[in-house]
């Protein structure tokens, strides 16, 4: 089964449901693209590239956002 490591957790997908693009993954997870910052395998993905970024088996994805802080 193809998998992605998302924020440290491994997620498995059936080949049919494996998201082809980063934007599809965010939609699948119910996340608001505007507020999210993504890093794939240690490289920052620019927001305008979310819909162009292809996902492949085994990628490590970090999804972060701004929260309250001092």
């Amino acid at each position, binding site marked *: 089964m193809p998998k992605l490591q998302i924020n440290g957790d491994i997620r498995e997908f059936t080949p049919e449901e494996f998201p082809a693009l980063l934007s599809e993954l965010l939609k699948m997870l119910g996340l608001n693209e505007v507020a999210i910052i993504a890093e794939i395998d240690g490289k920052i993905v620019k927001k305008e590239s979310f819909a162009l970024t292809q996902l492949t088996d085994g990628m490590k994805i970090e999804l972060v956002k701004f929260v309250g*802080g*001092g």
Partner: protein
Amino acid sequence: MNNDKLVIGGREFNSRLFVGTGKFSSSETMSQALKASESEMVTVALRRVDIGDPGDDMLEKIDMKQCQLLPNTSGARDAQEAIRVAMLSREASGINWIKLEVTPDPYYLLPDPIETLKATVELVKAGFIVLPYINADPILALHLQDAGAATVMPLGSPIGSNRGIQTRANIEIIIEQARVPVVVDAGLGLPSHAAEAMEMGADAVLVNTALAVAQDPVLIAEAFKLAVLAGRAAFLAGPGSVKKHAEASSPLTGFLD
């Protein structure tokens, strides 16, 4: 006082009170406290999204026209991690301002001077406006300003401790030597602590916990605003010197002789 502007990174600030957004009971309370503080510099942190509970977009609660957003690198334990967080923050927000925090020890959260200096050098090179959080170390402050830091932000006491200014003597030296604005950050628990920093000649103060954990964050935000104004005015007024003996306020010339 009206012409008394603080300039950092080419931007003018009317308010000398910087406010953090952590630990408030709700985004609504945070937003109201920010308004009451009249702050124009507001810190935020970057964290992993909780996939199960992503929460709302807290940036919507901050008036970006009024405030300079100042992302921090909290959670970074060394220069490399701080630089990574700064790069992500810039990508996320389009803002090249960064409050640099490198705290390897979660118990006291004291900043690592060596890693902070390393990260400052790299981030300045990468085009960031860097505001480093430091211990009250005058020599480090000089190294950082030489490295291009936009301010130095010495701590009064450990983050969130509400203990006030325990590092007074060293902060005085930092202020005396600084060519960049000095922002007293961390440990200020009461408006009187903020006023003390401003009376000493600090250019600004940063508070978060003191507001967030108060029973009425909005009211204490207003109190901090007033304290910063009062302390700044007192500094500009040039207060009298401290003396060992009495000096009469009323004339001592002949009376009922």
